[in-house]
C-alpha cells in the first residue's frame, strides 16, 4: 500500500480512492491558477450547484451497477416538476392554498419517478427489452407529456407561485445539502451494507448466476429503476425549489453529465462495479470543472470542448487504473 496516501483515504476502496484523486488534483490546479476560486463563497456556490447532479448520479449508479442504463432521468425531472407544480402552485394548483399542498405534491413527485421507474424496470426485466431503447422511448414520451401537461393545464410553458414551505428546500442551501447528502449516504449504505445492494451487484455481474443463486433478478432490476426514478424525482424537487418554478425543461441537459460523473467515479458501464463515493467524486469533479471554466471566462464552445476532453481523459485514466489493478 502506498504510504503517501493520507490516512483517511486508506479507508476507501482502491477504486474510490483513485476517483477522489481526480477532483483533488483539479481543485489544487484551479486554486493555484484561478483568482477568486478558493473562496468560501465560491466553493459554497459550487457545492450547491452540484447537489442535484449528486442525487441524480447516485440513482444512475445503482442502475449502472445492475448492468443497465437509465436515459429517462432527465424527462422524469421535467415531468415530476410539472406534476408537482400542478398540485401545489398557488396560481393553478389542484390543491392551491391548502396546507396539504406541499406534502401531497412531494408525494406525487416521488410517486411520478417511482412510476416511470416501475414502467422502465418492468419492460426491461419482464419483457426483456433493451434498457437503452426502453429508457430512450420513455424519455421521448415523458418529456412530451410534461410539455403537453403544462400547456394543457395552465397554457404556459412553466408554472410559478409554489408554496413557501416547498421553497424552503431552495432557499436554505443547508437543507438542500442535507437532503441530497442523506439520499446519497442512504444509497451508499444500501449498496454496501444491505442484501439488496449485493443483489444489485450480483445481477450486474451475471444475471443468470444471480437467478440460480436465488436472487429475485426481475424484482431487483425493477427496484433499481424505481430507485433511479425516485432519485430523479428528488433531483427535480431540488431544482424546482431552487428555481421556484415547475417546468418541463428542467434538467434536460443533465444526461451526459450524469453518466459522465458515474463513469469518472469508476462505475462500469458493463455492470457490477460502482460506488457512491466514487460517483460523488465524479460529481465534484464536474462541478469543479464547470465552475472553474466559468471563472476562467472561456467562451461557450471552449467549455463544451474542454468538457469532452476531460471526460475522455477520465475514461483513459479509468482504463489505466484497471490495468494497474489487474497487474498488481
Amino acid at each position: 500500500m502506498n504510504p503517501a496516501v493520507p490516512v483517511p483515504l486508506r479507508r476507501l476502496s482502491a477504486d474510490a480512492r483513485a476517483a477522489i484523486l481526480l477532483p483533488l488534483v483539479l481543485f489544487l490546479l484551479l486554486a493555484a491558477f484561478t483568482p477568486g476560486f478558493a473562496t468560501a463563497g465560491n466553493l459554497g456556490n459550487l457545492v450547491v450547484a452540484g447537489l442535484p447532479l449528486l442525487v441524480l448520479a447516485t440513482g444512475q449508479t445503482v442502475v449502472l451497477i445492475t448492468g443497465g442504463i437509465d436515459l429517462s432521468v432527465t424527462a422524469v425531472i421535467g415531468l415530476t416538476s410539472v406534476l408537482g407544480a400542478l398540485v401545489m402552485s398557488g396560481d393553478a394548483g389542484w390543491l392551491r392554498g391548502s396546507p396539504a399542498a406541499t406534502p401531497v405534491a412531494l408525494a406525487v413527485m416521488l410517486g411520478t419517478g417511482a412510476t416511470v421507474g416501475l414502467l422502465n424496470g418492468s419492460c426491461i426485466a419482464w419483457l426483456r427489452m433493451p434498457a437503452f431503447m426502453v429508457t430512450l422511448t420513455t424519455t421521448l414520451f415523458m418529456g412530451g407529456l410534461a410539455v403537453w401537461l403544462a400547456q394543457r393545464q395552465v397554457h404556459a410553458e412553466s408554472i410559478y407561485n409554489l408554496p413557501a414551505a416547498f421553497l424552503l428546500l431552495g432557499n436554505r442551501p443547508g437543507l438542500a445539502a442535507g437532503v441530497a447528502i442523506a439520499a446519497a449516504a442512504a444509497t451508499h449504505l444500501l449498496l454496501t451494507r444491505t442484501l439488496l445492494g449485493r443483489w444489485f451487484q450480483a445481477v450486474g455481474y451475471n444475471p443468470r448466476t444471480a437467478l440460480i443463486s436465488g436472487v429475485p433478478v426481475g424484482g431487483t432490476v425493477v427496484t433499481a429503476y424505481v430507485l433511479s426514478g425516485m432519485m430523479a424525482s428528488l433531483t427535480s424537487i431540488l431544482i424546482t425549489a431552487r428555481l421556484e418554478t415547475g417546468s418541463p425543461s428542467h434538467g434536460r441537459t443533465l444526461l451526459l453529465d450524469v453518466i459522465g460523473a458515474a463513469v469518472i467515479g469508476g462505475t462500469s458501464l458493463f455492470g457490477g462495479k460502482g460506488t457512491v463515493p466514487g460517483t460523488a467524486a465524479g460529481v465534484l469533479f464536474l462541478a469543479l470543472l464547470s465552475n472553474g471554466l466559468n471563472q476562467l471566462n472561456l467562451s461557450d464552445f471552449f467549455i463544451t470542448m474542454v468538457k469532452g476532453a476531460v471526460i475522455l481523459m477520465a475514461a483513459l485514466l479509468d482504463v489505466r487504473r484497471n490495468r494497474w489493478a489487474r497487474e498488481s
Partner: protein
Amino acid sequence: MKGDTTPPTSGGRETRPPAVSFEDIEKGFFGVPVLKRVRFSAQAGRITGLVGENGAGKSTLMNLLGGNLQPDSGQLRVNGSPYAPRGSGDARAAGIAFVHQELNLFPNLSIAENLFLTEFPRAAGGLPWIDRRKLRDRARHLLDQVDLAHDPDTPVERLPPGERQLLEIARALGAQAHLLLLDEPTTSLSVRECARLFDLMHRLRTRGIAMVYISHALGDVLNHCDDLVILRDGEVVGRGPAAEFTQERLVSLMVGRELNQLYPVRTPPPVPADSRPREPLLDVRGITQPGRVRDISFRLAPGEILGVAGLMGAGRSELARILFGLDPHASGEIRVEGRPLEGGPRRRIREGLAFLTEDRRHEGLCLEASVADNLALVTLGQHARTPVRWLDLPGIGTAVARIRDALQVSTRVTDAQPVRTLSGGNQQKVVLGKWLLSEPRILILDEPTRGIDVGARFEIYQWIHRLADRGSGILVISSEIEELIGLCDRILVMRQGELSGEFPRGEFNREQILAAALHTSTS
C-alpha cells in the same frame, strides 16, 4: 540432441523430424516458474496425449504454441525448423490449429462462413466479393472429411454441440493444419458424439496429421492416444507409448503420490434400500414438458447419491432445471418431504435445494466479482436482518473464511481476487462452496467435475459423500459413466427425455448403462 526416448514411430517415418518439439522450454510469470525445461515432441501421424492436473502447465504450453506467449528460454521446432510465433497468425501460417474446449464458432453465421472466416474464396476480377459457389464447394468437401452431412449454408445455431466440435476440426483441416491441438474437446459431447470424434481422429492420423490431445478423461486418453506425455508442476514427469501406462500409473504420476483409488470410500456404507425411511426426501411424479422430458418419476432418499446417466440432449440437464424451477413443466408433481415444490429458484433454495449447473462460467459464477462475494451469494439472506435487511458483514466474513478453508481453495488466492483469475478446479470449488454454505438437503450436481483435474475431483467427491452422510439427498448428472459408478448408490438412465433404466449399486454395469442410454432397437 534429443530423440533419445522418442517412441518408435509407425511405418518407416523415422527419418522425418517430429511435427512439433519442445526443447528445454522454460517459462515463468513474475518470477514463478511455470514450465521447467520441458522437453517432448509429437510425431506426424500419431496422437500424443498430454495429461496433467490443472495448473501443471498445459495451457501455458498451448499458449506458447499459439504465439500468445513467448518462452523465457529453450527452442520450439515445427517440422524440424525453429519456430518463434508472435501471434495467432504465425501459428496458422505454420500449419498449427487449435480445437478449444470452448467453441469458437459463430452461431449467427453459416457453416461455410465459419469454416472459411479468414480464408474466404474471392470472386474473380479483383473485387472483394466472396465467391459463394466456391465457398459452398470447398465447405462441402471439408464437411465430407469430418462426416457432416449438412448443407453448408445452414446456420451453425441449428447444429447440436457435438457436430459443432466436428466443425471446429473441419475448420482446422481447411486451414491446411498438419498439427492439431485438441484441448478438452469432449467435455460437451455425448458418448456417441465422442465416438464420432475419435473415429475422425483415427482417420486423420492415417493422413499423417499430428495431434496433441489434452483431456482429463484418462480412459479416453489411454484408449485413443499413441504416445503420452505427463506434466506435473511444469515438468515432464513421464512420457512414452500409451501402451506402457495404466490409469493408476497415470494418476500417480500426475498427482505425484499414490492415489489408492479415484473415488473415496464411503465410511458409513450407503443405507441399504430396504431400510430407508418411508418418506422420500424428493418425490418426482410424472414430470412432463413437451420437447424436453416425458413422464419422469423417481424418488430420492435422505443420504442417497443418485446418478443420472444419459447422452447429451437426453433431457438430464433439462430435468435438473425443471426441478430447480428454472424452466416450467406442463404436468407432473415435485414433492419435498411430502410438500409440493413450487415457485422459482428462490423458493426452492428455501426448501433446501441447491443446483450446481454444468455451465460454471456463465451460470455458476460472477466472474468479475470477488471470491468472497461469490461464496456468500446464496446465503446472504441468512445474514440479513430486517427491516431493511441489513447485512451482518462480520458474520458473512466468518462464514466465507470457514468454507474457504474447508474447501482448501488454493492459498495463493485472496478473498478480494476476482474469480475470473482462478483455475477451473478452484472455480468449481467456489461454486460448490457457495452451495455448501446453504447446507442443502437436496443437492443437484450437473457435470460437477467437467474439466477438473484428478486431485480436485477427489476433493469434490469427498464433499458429496460428506453431505450424503449428513442426510442430504444428492442427484449427480454426469456423462462419465465411470464417475457415476464410482460415486453413486443408484443410477438412473435417461434417453430422449424419458427414463430408460435404473440400476442399484451392485448391479452397476457399464455396458448395460450405455445400452440403456443409447436406445438400441431391442428396447
